[in-house]
């Protein structure tokens, strides 16, 4: 090898980034198809089944269609922000993935390679930071389009993300306390061994809070108020068309995938199988992530949408107090175990 160590590092990181990026893109397009299909089955419909075998090529068709559609920028819109918003949304969505680990360390030619783009010491905090930045894409989009539906949609979603980020964070606090580290990898490893070491079981309240908060955080049903068709046409992306629309959609799905990955890592023991004997492998992680994704789709097929005031009420007066209470309990337990 003629590369200096630094260059090797950079090359490997770039490789990882490419791989993850490709995987995410394909997963995204796959998700659009899977979601429609599964929903259709849940509702005794067929769903897309024309293009290709079982309509597998549907996403491709959609992509091409969107690509060739006309770009419309409303006259009264604030051009700069209107254009910037989708980009921002997607970028933040992808940034979040950077710290999500998807396996232990593998060795290629004796060189240890961490199955994670970057193993931050403050991984969890980083996740928060990025997800809190995600609000701006939506706010920008809503505001820039200069349309009351989009504005309300944007405000709603930002308020919602705001409120539920709090609960989300509180639900993570206990994991951090137990694992004693902000590093996602450490939290995952703290759940190695038997299945009841998983935080989903060991810290059921936190897990429950996480499920709800995460659903709200990625604006999925029953918390999909920002794009409540019945009230707000299509919420903050009413005015968007063609690729920008596609970008916003992508951002949403990537967020959902990230949330699932994080959930799988923090609560379902990541790449650990849950039995001491079984070797840990990325496969388990992927399986758990897919389970989460299915859960989201399932919810959408099952649960009706909240009303806005109910949503806020639930977030602030139920979720947050529950998370707080659990923090106290967990802290007490941790202290007791230490003593």
């Amino acid at each position, binding site marked *: 090898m003629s590369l200096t160590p630094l260059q090797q590092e950079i090359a490997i990181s770039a490789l990882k980034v490419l791989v993850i990026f490709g995987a995410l893109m394909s997963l995204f397009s796959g998700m659009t198809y899977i979601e429609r299909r599964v929903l259709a089955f849940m509702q005794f419909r067929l769903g897309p089944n024309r293009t290709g075998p079982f309509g597998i090529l549907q996403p491709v068709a959609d992509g091409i269609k969107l690509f060739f559609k006309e770009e419309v920028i409303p006259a009264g819109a604030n051009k700069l922000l209107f254009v910037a918003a989708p980009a921002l949304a997607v970028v933040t969505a992808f940034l979040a993935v950077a710290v999500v680990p998807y396996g232990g360390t593998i060795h290629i030619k004796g060189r240890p390679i961490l199955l994670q783009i970057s193993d931050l010491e403050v991984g969890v*905090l980083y996740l928060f*930071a*990025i997800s*809190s930045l995600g609000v701006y894409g939506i706010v920008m989009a809503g505001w820039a389009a200069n349309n009351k539906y989009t504005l309300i949609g944007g405000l709603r979603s930002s308020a919602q993300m705001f409120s539920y*980020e709090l609960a989300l964070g509180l639900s993570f606090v206990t994991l951090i306390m137990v694992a004693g580290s902000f590093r996602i990898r450490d939290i995952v490893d703290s759940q190695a061994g038997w299945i009841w070491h998983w935080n989903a079981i060991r810290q059921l309240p936190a897990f429950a809070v996480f499920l709800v908060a995460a659903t709200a955080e990625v604006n999925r049903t029953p918390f999909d108020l920002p794009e409540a068709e019945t009230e707000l046409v299509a919420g903050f992306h009413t005015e968007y068309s063609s690729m920008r629309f596609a970008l916003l959609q992508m951002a949403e799905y990537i967020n959902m995938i990230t949330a699932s990955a994080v959930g799988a890592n923090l609560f379902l023991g990541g790449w650990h199988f849950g039995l001491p004997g079984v070797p840990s492998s990325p496969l388990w992680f992927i399986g758990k992530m897919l389970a989460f994704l299915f859960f989201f789709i399932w919810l959408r097929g099952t649960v009706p949408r909240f009303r806005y005031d109910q949503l806020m009420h639930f977030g602030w007066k139920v979720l947050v107090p529950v998370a707080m209470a659990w923090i106290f309990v967990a802290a007490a337990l941790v202290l007791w175990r230490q003593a």
Partner: protein
Amino acid sequence: MSIALFQAILFYVFGALALGAALVMVAQRNPTYSAFALIVTLVSLSAVFGLLGSPFIAALQIIVYAGAIMVLFLFVLMLLNVRTEVRAPGEGRVFKLVAIGFGALLVGEIGSVLVAARPALAGGFDASARQVARLLFETQYLYVFEATSILILASLVGAIALAKRDPSP
């Protein structure tokens, strides 16, 4: 090409970004643009923090400033539907010139000090969340921390009380 150089490059990139965004924020007449510019400044500042070896504060910076405070600003901007500043006819020009002059004076004064100063560079610097937390919770700062929690509570109540519409009309 070494790690240090790499870091240095990143540092200057983000520093320039922060500076430029700050200038935009001040120069911009449309408060919404200013807000977004400020957000850019904050984010790049947090990157600078990270490069200065304090990841914890970097994360906090984004969470608190970009994630909470600036969203609040944007909310208010959208709520009040703020328009672009109209250029005031003439008056206040002198005042602004004087202000800029004094700003320059400030830069001159402190800059002279900073240029003259030769900062050290401590080795084995570890500002991980663990260390910061130790300092925060195991020394006299604990009381300050509690005090800030009370402060937050007070401001919470105050903000609600202030912004609440008075029921009378």
